[in-house]
């Protein structure tokens, strides 16, 4: 995250053509090589993210295999009554919000690539707003669960088969629900922080068609957060 401009004149290895991108670091032959290297590193990080969530997905699958009936009953608590029928309203809206935010993000990247500074800022701010909408809906969802005592693990206090018969299916379901959506929510929060940093830099005029690496990489991060939600949504809200 070095935002300081490298001192281009003190670095050797370049001929004195004058025209030199200030973000070009001397240990890279070209800007393109520098960009590709950063991108490769970002992808390696994203794979560790997939494996981080992957472990939780596998755990969720194992526990669903162990408590199939309780998991189905517990997931009904994630639905709302819409015209007298249970429907995962919050989950569906949040999926759409996150998809649209992915679109605003990629439009922001595209604007940065094509030297449209104002558009870049606008799309990045829109992405932040949509991320806040996502977390706002998440807050409403969580407060309903807290109120009903649908809490993870040993904090579970909802009147159900779990407490009557001493089974663990419900508590396990909500343990995974809160851990996975919570970890995802933390990623959204981190994303808001990164996007705010991008907005600051974009307003300062750091990005151009010659240098937009941070916008592109934060975009990749944002899309992987979206991709994880794409799997979270059907597994938690739509199981039957």
């Amino acid at each position: 995250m070095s935002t300081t401009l490298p001192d281009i004149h003190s670095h050797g290895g370049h001929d004195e053509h004058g025209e030199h991108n200030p973000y070009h670091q001397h240990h890279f032959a070209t800007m393109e090589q520098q960009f590709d290297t950063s991108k490769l590193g970002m992808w390696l990080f994203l794979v560790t993210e997939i494996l981080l969530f992957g472990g939780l997905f596998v755990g969720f699958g194992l526990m669903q295999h162990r408590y199939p009936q309780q998991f189905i009953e517990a997931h009904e608590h994630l639905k709302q009554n819409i015209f007298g029928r249970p429907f995962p309203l919050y989950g569906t809206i949040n999926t759409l919000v996150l998809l649209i935010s992915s679109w605003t993000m990629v439009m922001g990247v595209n604007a940065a690539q094509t030297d449209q500074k104002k558009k870049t800022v606008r799309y990045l701010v829109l992405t932040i707003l949509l991320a806040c909408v996502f977390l706002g809906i998440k807050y409403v969802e969580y407060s309903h669960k807290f109120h009903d005592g649908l809490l993870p693990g040993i904090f579970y206090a909802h009147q159900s088969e779990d407490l009557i018969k001493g089974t663990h299916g419900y508590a396990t379901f909500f343990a995974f629900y809160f851990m996975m959506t919570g970890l995802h929510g933390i990623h959204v929060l981190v994303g808001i922080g990164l996007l705010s940093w991008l907005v600051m830099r974009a307003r300062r005029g750091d990005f151009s068609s010659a240098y937009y690496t941070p916008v592109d990489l934060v975009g990749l991060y944002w899309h992987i957060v979206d991709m994880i939600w794409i799997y979270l949504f059907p597994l938690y809200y739509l199981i039957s």
Partner: protein
Amino acid sequence: MSTETHTHAEGAKHHGGPLIYTANLFALMFLTVVTVAAASFNFGSANVVIALAIASVKAILVGLFFMHLLWDKPVNAIILIAGFLFLGIFLMFDFLDVTSRNNYLPRNMPNMENATPAPDSMNPLKTPAPRPLDPAPAKAEEHK
């Protein structure tokens, strides 16, 4: 060398574009509606398969277009696919374990009657794990 530093902008970077991204967004929203609608029907155990298949199509769309993998150098896609591959191995071996957990004896053993069955305490289906909050059995009281 410095002439090359400017090819970044003109190079093979501006594939995609607003039109493709917008079309991709509508495809993703359509698939979201499809997966919610499909969940309201009962296909038995196929429901999970359908939901995960649609989710995978959505993930591939996000990867190809929003994450530029379609136009990128293939190395990035290879890294992503390798990640999913190892996740698949992880998942597969875990479920091999789960689905075969209670078969302590070979099914083709000739005289099963003489074999010693595994004790119930080793069978998670017959002996549920203790709840963390359950009060410990008051054994000390009984002796008094």
